[in-house]
C-alpha cells in the first residue's frame, strides 16, 4: 500500500523540477494595476533634499581649490571682524558729566579710553550759546579711564577737576576718571 521511500522522493523531485508555468498576461496586469495607483505628491523640501543627497562625482581642479580657499577666507574674515568695535554695556553704567571752561574755543571734544580716542565720537556742547562752559554727559561702566579734552582739533587739555594721569608717555596731558560699583 505504501511506496518505497526512495520512490516517493524521486516522484516529488521530478514534480519540482518541472518548469513553472506563468500566465503570459501577468506582467501586463501588474503594470496596469501600478499605473492606476495615485502618484505621490513630493514637497519642495523633499525635492530639494533629494537633489542635495543625490550622489555626485566631483572633480577638484586647481581653480576650484583656489575658489574654495577664497570662500573659506571670506567666511573667516567676516566671522573674525564681527559687528565692529565693542560698545560699552548699557547695563551697570552710570552717567558721568565732564565740563571744561574754554572761552575762546570753537569746538571741544571729549576723547578717551571709553570712545577709542576718537575725536569725532563725543563732541561737547556749550552749556548756553554765549557760555564759555562746555559740557557732555556719557554713561560709564565701573573702571578706570584715561581721557583728555581736544580743543579746536589741535590743543590737548587735561581736566583741571580730575586727577592727572601720571603715565603719560605721549607728551600731552591726560586725566583719569574712576567709576566705582558700590
Amino acid at each position, binding site marked *: 500500500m505504501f511506496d518505497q521511500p526512495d520512490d516517493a522522493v524521486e516522484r516529488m523531485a521530478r514534480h519540482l523540477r518541472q518548469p513553472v508555468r506563468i500566465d503570459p498576461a501577468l506582467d501586463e496586469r501588474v503594470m496596469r494595476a501600478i499605473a492606476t495607483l495615485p502618484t505621490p505628491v513630493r514637497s519642495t523640501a523633499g525635492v530639494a533634499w533629494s537633489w542635495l543627497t543625490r550622489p555626485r562625482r566631483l*572633480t*577638484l*581642479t*586647481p*581653480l576650484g*581649490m*583656489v575658489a*574654495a*580657499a*577664497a570662500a*573659506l*577666507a571670506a567666511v*573667516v*574674515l567676516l566671522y*573674525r*571682524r564681527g559687528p*565692529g*568695535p*565693542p560698545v560699552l554695556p548699557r547695563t551697570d553704567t*552710570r*552717567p*558721568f*558729566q*565732564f565740563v571744561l571752561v574754554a572761552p575762546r574755543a570753537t569746538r571741544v571734544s571729549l*576723547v578717551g*579710553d571709553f570712545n*577709542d*580716542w*576718537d*575725536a569725532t565720537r563725543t563732541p561737547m556742547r556749550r552749556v548756553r550759546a554765549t557760555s564759555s562752559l562746555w559740557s557732555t*554727559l556719557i554713561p*560709564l561702566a*565701573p*573702571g*578706570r579711564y*584715561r581721557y583728555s579734552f581736544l580743543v579746536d582739533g589741535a590743543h*590737548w587739555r587735561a*581736566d583741571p*577737576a*580730575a*586727577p*592727572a*594721569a*601720571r*603715565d603719560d*608717555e*605721549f*607728551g*600731552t596731558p*591726560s*586725566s*583719569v*576718571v*574712576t*567709576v*566705582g*560699583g*558700590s
Partner: protein
Amino acid sequence: MRGSPWSGAACLLAATLVTGTMAAQQIDPRLDRLDAVTRSIVGALVDSAVAAALPTEPLIQRALEGATKRATGEVIVAAVRRLAQDLAHARDALGGTASPGELTAGAAALRAGASPAFLTELRRTRREPLIVPLAVLTDLVASGVPVDSAAHAVVALASRTRDADLIEFRRAVERDIALGAPPAAATAAAAGLTAQSVDVNAGARQQRPGRP
C-alpha cells in the same frame, strides 16, 4: 581628485591664503589707525597678551591714544609694551581671578610706585572689586602723597569702605592739599574722618551724574 602638476601649487596657495587671512584678522581693526609697522608690532603684543590671559583692551586703547595724539610708532610700541608688562605684574600680585578692570588699575598703581605686596594685601583685605582702592592710591600719589602713606590709608579703609566713600576720601585729601596741608598729614586726617563716617551718608548717593 584629478592628479595634476597644478594641484600641489594650488594646495600651497590655498593654505597660504587661509593662514594669512586668519593671522591678519587677529589684529584688531581699530588698530588700522596705526601705520603698518606699528600696527604689526602692537598686534603681536596684543597676541602675546591673549596668550598670557591678560586683558587686551587697555593695550589697544593705549595704542589708539598714541595714534590720536600723533605719537611716533616707537613711542606707541614702548608705551604698549610697558603697559603689558605692568598688567602681567599686576596679575602676579592680584592673582588669576583679578578682573580686567582690576588689572588695569593695578598696573597704574604699580607704575605709581605701589609695591606688589600692597596689591596682594589689598586683595586679601577687601572682598569687593579693587578698582577704586587701587585708583585712589594712584591718584593720591599723583597728588603728592607719599606712596607708603597712601597705601597705609587705603588698606586701612578698604575692608569696610564702599567705592563712593573711597572716592570721597580722595577728594577730601586733594582738597586739603590744595588748601596747603602737607600731603601725608592730609591723607591721615581724611582717612580718620572717612573711617568714622562710612555709614552716615549711605542713602544720599547716586542721585546726580558722577564727576571725575
